[in-house]
């Protein structure tokens, strides 16, 4: 790690001021610091200052529900807080399950939800200093001709990273809003938080370097579920992730929100699957299977990852089934 200073700020103004001051070279915000430490240890970034924003993003009750039913998670709620939250289990199981499925107890105890959304790609070429790939300002992506078993099967490049966040697809099916401070705007829908590589390579998200996520809000999605497929039984980056949120009335799916993870450079919405699920009976296994199999449509696998297009429909089907089962057991 390079030498750096650490500031613990109490107000957004203080944070923004430090980020903009010329006193320190390339300052960065820090929350749990897990993704940052990984970058620092590999020498991928050399900031002169880490601005710890957990002191301002916090609140006594990191997860709560407003009187109108809106759910709110503060930016510095940890994945462990979220995985344990009775509110999330009851009103947004997809969020609780996504948080629980991520990483290990040690990481979940420290990782914040904002840091989770803004973590950088896990592409092994990106994470190793000696590969000067497109994303780091170099001239080529090493994935197409290299080891691309864990890379994207959608998106078409020019960077074939997968977005690593487990919470991002889950929050996508909740139509979550990301509340920010520091720039003038107040919130953006999660669907506008990320951009594809052809819209800019050096960052995956649309926040400015001084913008701070303060909290995230969304409406309850009681009939929702998350499913991640791993190579190992535990503590492994998912090969494919599926988030599903259903509206079910009298045994029929009235509408569905489906989003995949670990298959594209952004959380990957699946509108065709959503359309196909609409108006299906929840016990019509054949039609449900067929609808979910559309998840692989228009996939563009690289040389070593076509298997992901087989896994994905299964992950989606499992998430849908889990959301349905939840419906059956949940008293209204």
């Amino acid at each position, binding site marked *: 790690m390079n030498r750096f*200073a650490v500031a613990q700020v109490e107000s957004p*103004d203080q944070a923004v001021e430090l980020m903009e001051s010329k006193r320190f070279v390339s300052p960065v915000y820090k929350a749990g610091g897990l993704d940052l430490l990984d970058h620092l240890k590999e020498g991928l970034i050399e900031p002169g200052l880490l601005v710890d924003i957990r002191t*301002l993003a916090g609140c006594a009750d990191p997860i709560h529900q407003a009187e109108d039913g809106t759910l709110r998670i503060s930016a510095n709620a940890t994945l462990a807080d979220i995985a344990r939250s009775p509110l999330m289990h009851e009103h947004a199981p997809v969020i609780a399950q996504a948080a629980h499925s991520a990483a290990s107890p040690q990481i979940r*105890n*420290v990782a914040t939800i904002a840091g989770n959304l803004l973590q950088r790609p896990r592409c092994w070429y990106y994470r190793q200093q000696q590969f000067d790939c497109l994303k780091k300002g170099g001239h080529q992506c090493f994935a197409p001709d290299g080891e691309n078993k864990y890379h994207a099967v959608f998106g078409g490049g020019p960077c074939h990273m997968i977005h690593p966040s487990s919470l991002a697809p889950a929050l996508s099916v909740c139509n979550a809003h990301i509340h920010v401070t520091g720039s003038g705007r107040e919130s953006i829908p999660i669907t506008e938080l990320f951009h594809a590589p052809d819209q800019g390579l050096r960052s995956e998200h649309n926040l400015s370097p001084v913008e701070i996520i303060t909290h995230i809000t969304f409406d309850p999605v009681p009939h929702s579920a998350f499913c991640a497929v791993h190579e190992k039984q535990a503590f492994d980056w998912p090969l494919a992730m599926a988030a599903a949120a259903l509206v079910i009335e009298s045994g029929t799916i009235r509408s569905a929100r489906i989003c995949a993870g670990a298959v594209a450079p952004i959380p990957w919405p699946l509108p065709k699957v959503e359309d196909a699920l609409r108006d299906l009976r929840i016990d019509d296994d054949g039609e449900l299977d067929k609808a979910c199999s559309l998840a692989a449509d228009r996939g563009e696998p690289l040389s070593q990852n076509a298997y992901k297009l087989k896994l994905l429909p299964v992950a989606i089907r499992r998430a849908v089934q889990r959301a349905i089962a939840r419906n059956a057991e949940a008293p209204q």
Partner: protein
Amino acid sequence: MPDEHPDSSCDDQKRTDAAVGALSRRRFMQTVGLSSAAALADRARAAAVADDTGAPPILGPGAVDIALHVNGATVKVKAEPATTLLEVLRMHLGLTGSKEICGRGACGGCSVLVDGKLVYSCMMLAVDAISAKITTIEGLAEGDALDPIQESFIRHDALQCGYCTPGFVMASTALLGENPRPSLDEIKAGLSGNSCRCGSHSNIFNAVLDASGQAPIHDGEGA
């Protein structure tokens, strides 16, 4: 990092925002009863002298005083902010029970408890642990009397080379603290952030079952 900013705001916008920020900050600080945030802020103040301009305290980049509560004792070290908790434990305090194996949050060899929570000390800055209560493997035994979980590891031969053992013992301690009678699946989940290259897992699971008053599994079963 030269990111693209669709919303790179104009200066007027920023000024208005600074005003809004100041207001919401006041409201913010009123509503935030904030256990963890307050603790962090206290830590910052304890460790750094803020100047009287209202600017936030800044630690480093040179060595700063770091006071830690480790295994019941308060200790003071001088280290740069770019120092991990694991480095302070091992290099400054000589507590070499916690191991650095991967150094990247992937193996669990460096697991310690910070305010009762299991963390990877290789992935935490020492300044983030200022004022927190830290328990390392050295803090489990009372004198010569080992902790029951340590006894159970020995009884079940839950180690081979032993390098991962301090981490597994700390993870087991955290697990039993939260869940005194975990099922086998819960044990596997609770210890999933730790790896044992020698493959002692089934004996480790048995050690935890036994330490929580449950019958061990037979060899090969369920592991």
